[in-house]
């Protein structure tokens, strides 16, 4: 529903001043959204925490097992306490955070690529291609993500060996989880992209492009896609939060990233049996997950308002 009242409002505000590009206007709208700023701030703080933190704690710290120090409450030596194997939890939240964030980001990359691909092809070509792709999308969408996650995670169970990048060792299960989460979250985006494509392809500028002999691929990537960036960006941002949550769920069930590689999710898995005995074990990773998802949600909300002032689900 296009609410001309609102867009008029925006124009009126800037009347008499210099005009802005859409991007600048979007930015101004974003900045006015206080919650989004808080979200962005929190996010930056967290990313700093997990990346810069590795300057203070080496990976060895995070994985160093000291059985005699296991399950110790927070102290000077171990500000967040230690876990079941006596490993320092602060260091583990840092390195675990890296993995959780990486998984979140990369999984979204996978799901955006797949979703946009399928949505664009379905929307652009229409007809039976659209029908088949959409039925397929619905089919996969109907199955609860967690069920799919579980089956896929076990399917690829031993697929990938451990590997090293930049001196850090990653368990092969990280790649598996990224792929699995990506493969189970593209459906929503595909739908949105498709409906955008369906409406946009009838527009004059596309018809004009066709007249000038532009090929399909060029039209898709050069003309239509840029105009659907807004919902893609918003959706992708919110997806990161979902991906982090999905990783947490599946690691909690024990099927996610395998030890000893830490993620916030599998740290919660380890903490499950020690709710009262060692509450620091679940409190820190749990809260970190909460805060990052919160931050991303705020941010996404702000983005949605900024980039798509026509969107229905406004906060007010």
């Amino acid at each position: 529903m296009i609410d001309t009242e609102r867009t008029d409002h925006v124009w009126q505000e800037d009347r008499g001043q210099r005009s802005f590009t859409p991007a600048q206007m979007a930015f101004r709208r974003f900045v006015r959204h206080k919650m989004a700023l808080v979200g962005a701030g929190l996010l930056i703080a967290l990313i700093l925490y997990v990346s810069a933190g590795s300057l203070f704690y080496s990976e060895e710290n995070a994985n160093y097992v000291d059985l005699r120090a296991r399950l110790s409450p927070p102290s000077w030596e171990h500000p967040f306490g230690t876990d079941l194997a006596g490993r320092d939890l602060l260091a583990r939240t840092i390195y675990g955070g890296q993995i959780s964030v990486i998984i979140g980001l990369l999984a979204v990359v996978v799901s955006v690529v797949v979703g946009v691909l399928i949505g664009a092809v379905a929307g652009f070509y229409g007809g039976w291609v659209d029908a088949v792709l959409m039925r397929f999308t619905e089919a996969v969408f109907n199955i609860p993500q967690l069920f799919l996650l579980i089956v896929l995670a076990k399917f690829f169970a031993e697929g990938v060996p451990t590997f090293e990048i930049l001196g850090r060792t990653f368990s092969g299960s990280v790649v598996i989880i990224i792929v699995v989460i990506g493969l189970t979250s593209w459906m929503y985006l595909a739908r949105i992209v498709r409906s955008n494509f369906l409406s946009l392809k009838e527009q004059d500028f596309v018809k004009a492009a066709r007249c000038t002999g532009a090929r399909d691929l060029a039209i898709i990537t050069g003309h239509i896609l840029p105009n659907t960036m807004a919902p893609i960006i918003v959706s992708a941002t919110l997806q990161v939060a979902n991906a982090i949550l999905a990783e947490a769920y599946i690691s909690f069930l024990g099927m996610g990233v395998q030890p000893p590689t830490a993620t916030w999710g599998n740290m919660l898995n380890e903490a499950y049996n020690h709710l009262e005995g060692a509450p620091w074990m679940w409190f820190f990773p749990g809260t970190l997950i909460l805060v990052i998802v919160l931050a991303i949600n705020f941010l996404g909300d702000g983005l949605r308002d900024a980039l798509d002032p026509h969107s229905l689900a406004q906060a007010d």
Partner: protein
Amino acid sequence: MTRYVIRRLLQAIPLLLLVSLMLFVLASNLGDPLASFGGVRRRLPAKDRERLTKKLGLDKPIPVQYLIWLVGNDWMEIDADGDGVPDERGTRRGVLRGDFGTSFTEKRPAIEIIWQRIPNTLLLMGTSEVVVIVLSLVIGIYSATRQYSVVDSIVTTLSFVGYSMPIFWLALMLIYIFGVNFRRWGLPYFPVVGMYDLEVGRTFGQVLWHMVLPVASLSIVSVASYSRYVRSQMLEVINQDYIRTARAKGLPRQMILFGHALKNAALPLVTIIGMDLPLLLGGSVVTEAIFGWPGMGRLYFKATNKADIPVIMGILVIISVLVVLFQIATDVVYAFLDPRIRYD
């Protein structure tokens, strides 16, 4: 309308077949179900393992296994005694005729096992769904009508926090506070395991009492997000002209609210809730695991661990069918509620 429904149903069939094939391939590669046939403390002797593999038909190629799963094997000869020679008619009738096969882990028809668990999950989910709808509407409307107030801000904030929480974190917090610590502090506390106390039996009261924490975990997250949605929908509607007209006409507030605004605001909620079924089912896996609730989610999890193909496929098929039917039902309800919508 009937034509629409029938068309949707017919369209659903090839869909379901396709999905079932994909899932069967996945489910067949979860490991060797016979690996743990010796139980926790034993391993099966070699001869027995070989014999049972043949008997269960697990040595056949996957497409053949899928076919048998779908249409049964009573039309062909199979090797029932594991001696390598197919010499007996099969006894399976296949899913299309309602036979989901026999569970590998429990030696009972898979459908029986699943059927026993479904009511428990439905109970949990149904209750959660009702709680979600009621609370979202109440909170959303309250928030919308008191926009900009303190209450509204608190509610908005809590909503954000609520739906950012992983369900299990929430569940653990609830257990920690209401299950463990309440008991420590001598307050009446909530049980954290199972559906009812064995000694008391499966009474209405017991089940209700045991349901409180799991339902809370499942619903809080959804309430958080839906109440926001209702709120924004309500706000949208309240600002419309026809509401202003009604107010100008002097209609009492309640009537405006419930007679006009609510109906229009609640409509999209119907579709959203329809789409939410898969989410609730998923949430149930974790919640059931944490609370020891004997439901379908837990069964699924166990079955995937044990590579119990008949049960896994049975659950997935039932879920897919349920979701498709639910979606069609939602669309029909939507059409009833909104006279502007006409399918054809």
